[in-house]
Every structure is written in structure tokens, then in C-alpha cells.
């Protein structure tokens, strides 16, 4: 990683250094968005969740004491912000237009519709606990120890959630490939 390390940036940002804060946010925004995109399952909610997550990170920096890795702390804040956003969204009905969502990605729908819908909807069918563990592991590549720290659970729980989450995903994706019928989000 180029430039100052995260902990140094976080300390300076907490002291009010705008440049440090924006460098830190800019550096980690792609991972936060990836996390939120997989957690929320669509572009618009992911954008909103990412905004909330970045705000939560920026505002929470004075409480970052440096005992954990910055990224661990950041992932915890971002995961919670994503979950909060998802819960807020789930409290109100919202029309879903998958064609429009796909059109916004710039990806050829002919190539991506099945895959995108399958993984997004399959993930949406998981419980929040399982989804978070799977996304942190498989999208962000965190190891079990760090996931346990991020989620505040024991490592055995992390292993169990990842295993069950992947098994459910495999079943949903396998079924959808045959029937084209994927169970909708748990909302």
C-alpha cells in the first residue's frame, strides 16, 4: 500500500486533518462498496449504504483507539452500517426493476442477467448473519479470525455461518440453474 499507513491516517483524521480523512476514505471506499453491494444486492441500496458507512467511519474515527487493525474496525463499522441500511430499507415497500438496475452497470445484460440475479437473490435469501460472514470471507477475503473480530462472535460461529451460508447458496444457485426460480429476499 502506498502512502502513510491506515493507523497514522486515522489518527490524523481524528485530529481533524481533512486530507488524511479523505485519503483514508478514498483508499477504502472500493472495499466498503463491494461489501455493501454484496450485502444489499442492488446498486442503489449499495450506494446509499456505502454513503452511510463512510459517514459512520468518518464520524467514528475519534473512537478508533488503534488496538485493532484499522481495517478490522472499518469492516465492523461498515458492516453495521450496511445492515442498518438494509433494515431501514426493509421497513418500506420498494419496487424492484432488475432490468433498470442491470442497465446501470454497463454490463451486457445478455451475459449477466442470470448470474447477477442469481447471486444477488441467492445472497438475499440468507440470514443477515450468514450473509455477512460469507461476504466478508468470499468477497473481501478476510480470514476467520478477522471475521470473528468484525462480527463480534467466536471463530467457531464464523466457521459455522460460512459453511451454512455457502451450502445454502450452493443449493439456491443450483436450483435456480435448473428451474430459473430463485427464492426472493427475506424481507
Amino acid at each position, binding site marked *: 500500500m502506498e502512502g502513510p499507513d491506515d493507523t497514522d491516517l486515522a489518527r490524523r483524521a481524528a485530529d*481533524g486533518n*481533512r486530507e488524511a*480523512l*479523505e485519503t483514508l*476514505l*478514498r483508499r477504502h*471506499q*472500493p472495499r466498503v*462498496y*463491494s461489501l455493501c*453491494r*454484496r450485502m444489499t444486492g442492488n*446498486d*442503489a441500496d449499495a*450506494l*446509499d449504504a*456505502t*454513503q*452511510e458507512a*463512510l*459517514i459512520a*467511519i*468518518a*464520524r467514528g*474515527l475519534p473512537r478508533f483507539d488503534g488496538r485493532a487493525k484499522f481495517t478490522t474496525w472499518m469492516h465492523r463499522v461498515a458492516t453495521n*452500517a450496511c445492515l442498518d441500511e438494509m433494515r*431501514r430499507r426493509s*421497513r*418500506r415497500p*420498494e*419496487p*424492484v*426493476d432488475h432490468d*433498470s*438496475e442491470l*442497465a*446501470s*452497470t*454497463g*454490463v451486457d445484460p445478455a451475459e449477466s442477467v442470470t*448470474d447477477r440475479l442469481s*447471486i444477488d437473490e441467492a*445472497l438475499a435469501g440468507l440470514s443477515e448473519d450468514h450473509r455477512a460472514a*460469507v*461476504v466478508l*470471507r*468470499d*468477497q473481501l477475503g478476510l480470514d*476467520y479470525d478477522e471475521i470473528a473480530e468484525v462480527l463480534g462472535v467466536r471463530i467457531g460461529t464464523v*466457521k*459455522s455461518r*460460512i*459453511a*451454512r451460508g*455457502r*451450502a445454502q*447458496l*450452493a443449493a439456491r*444457485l*443450483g436450483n435456480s440453474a435448473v428451474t430459473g426460480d430463485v427464492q426472493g429476499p427475506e424481507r
Partner: protein
Amino acid sequence: MSTPSEDELLAAVLDGEASRAESEAVLADPELSARLEQMRTARDAVAEEVPGLSELQAERLVAVASRVARDDGRTRRSRLLPWATAAAVVLMAGAVTVVMLNRDDDPPAQTASEAPGERLPDHFIDEPADSPISEDVPHSHVDDQEALAPALEEPEALDHDVVTPIQPPLNLGSLGDLELSDDLADVAASAMEDAPGGAVDPAASACIFPYQSAQGLAPPVGVGTATLGGQAVAVGVLSYSAPEDFAPDANLATLVVTTLPECAIVLTGPFEMLGR
């Protein structure tokens, strides 16, 4: 049917956490091996790289977060009006009035987006289409928060539980080909009364979206598209909240227009909603 212990074994093999003997046992069992491949497919699907945000979008997110954090010490939390009459949608006059009161020394500028008979505060000015959006958008939004600050309550940490939930914006659809921003304001106001429904245009939503976050003070209540002076634009109708004791009968919205697909701001300005 898999068992939890088998699932954990397969996950451990996938993650390289299983012993060599365990891995070999899985691969030697046709059923487990097949399920391992299914799980690998699922894992790879989750791991597939997520298309990132555009540089512009990313910069706007960072700028808004940075601005909100910096303003934490001086921005006070609004005692938001109940959103009760969701259909009524908009409360803007409070913000406008506070701005004018707070800027007595600062004569407001006359702008093209000014509604008849009104003088606008100076931050509701038309901006050139090539204005740097990373500055314009957050400033526009946060300045409104600053404008509200004197009437707000003591600062407190962000607490999602007390932030008033926002409703999804109405889909205003395509508002047509217009030459003047005032005409666009009229058309947008009419569209708010008779929105076609359905999901909003994602590109337009992405351009209007940043106003929605940052404490939820200015969520878009309607999003559409139009052509303004030959330029494809995203159109957002924003709802502002004002302290109840300050402007209890506030009912004005702000129109935000940004170019598509660059999201450069064209104008922001209040306009009176039709059919209160």
C-alpha cells in the same frame, strides 16, 4: 442432504483450513466432491469482483462523508418534522427562511431558477454545467444543514435509530425536452402530482442520490430525467425538513438538476409545489 459438519468440512477444504487427510477424504467421496464443487461455484460467485463506482460517484461519497464529519462539531441535529403527510412531501420554506435570516448581511443573488415573486438565498444559484461536482454537491447539501444550524438542537453522535426513515422517491419518468429551468420546475411539480410509479431511472438516481444521505436531511422525493437546453439531465425534487417551531407551514421543495451522465450540477433552487 448435507449435514452441518459436512458443510463445515467442505468449507474448510475450500478455504485451505482442512488437513490433508480431510481434503483427500472429500475428494475421494463422489458425493462430497460434487458438493464441494457446488460450494466452490457459490463461493466464486460471491467472490466475483463487484463493478466499482465511477470516480465521480466515489469522490462525492468521500466528500459528503468528509464534510459531515468536519461539521460534526458545529452542525446541530435537526429536530425533524414528522414526515407524516408523506404525500405532501416537502418542507422547504423553513430552510429558505432560515437562510435568509442568517444572511441578512449577504444580499441574495438573483437567479434563473428563482420563482416568481421570490428572492432566493445566495446558495441557490445556478451553476455552470462543468462545475466540479465533488465540490458542488456536498457544499450544496451541507450548506443547507449549516443554514439550519441555529435552530437545531445540540450535536450528538449519528444514531440511525433516530434518523427519520426516508421514503423511496417517486418516479417522475421523462419530463420532456425543455429550454428553461422554470419550465422544468413547473413540469417537475406537475409530475410530482401524477408520478407514473415504478423504479426510478438508476442513472438519474445516482446523480441525485448524494443529497439523500448525510443525516437524511434532504432526501429526494422524486427523481426523473429530462432534456434541458439540449442537455440530458437528471431531475430531483428534494424534501427539506425544518424545525417545527420555526416554519410549521413550510411547503417548498428544491429542484436539483444535474447533467447525465456526468452528474455535474446545472441548478439548484426552491420551487413551490403544486397542489398542497
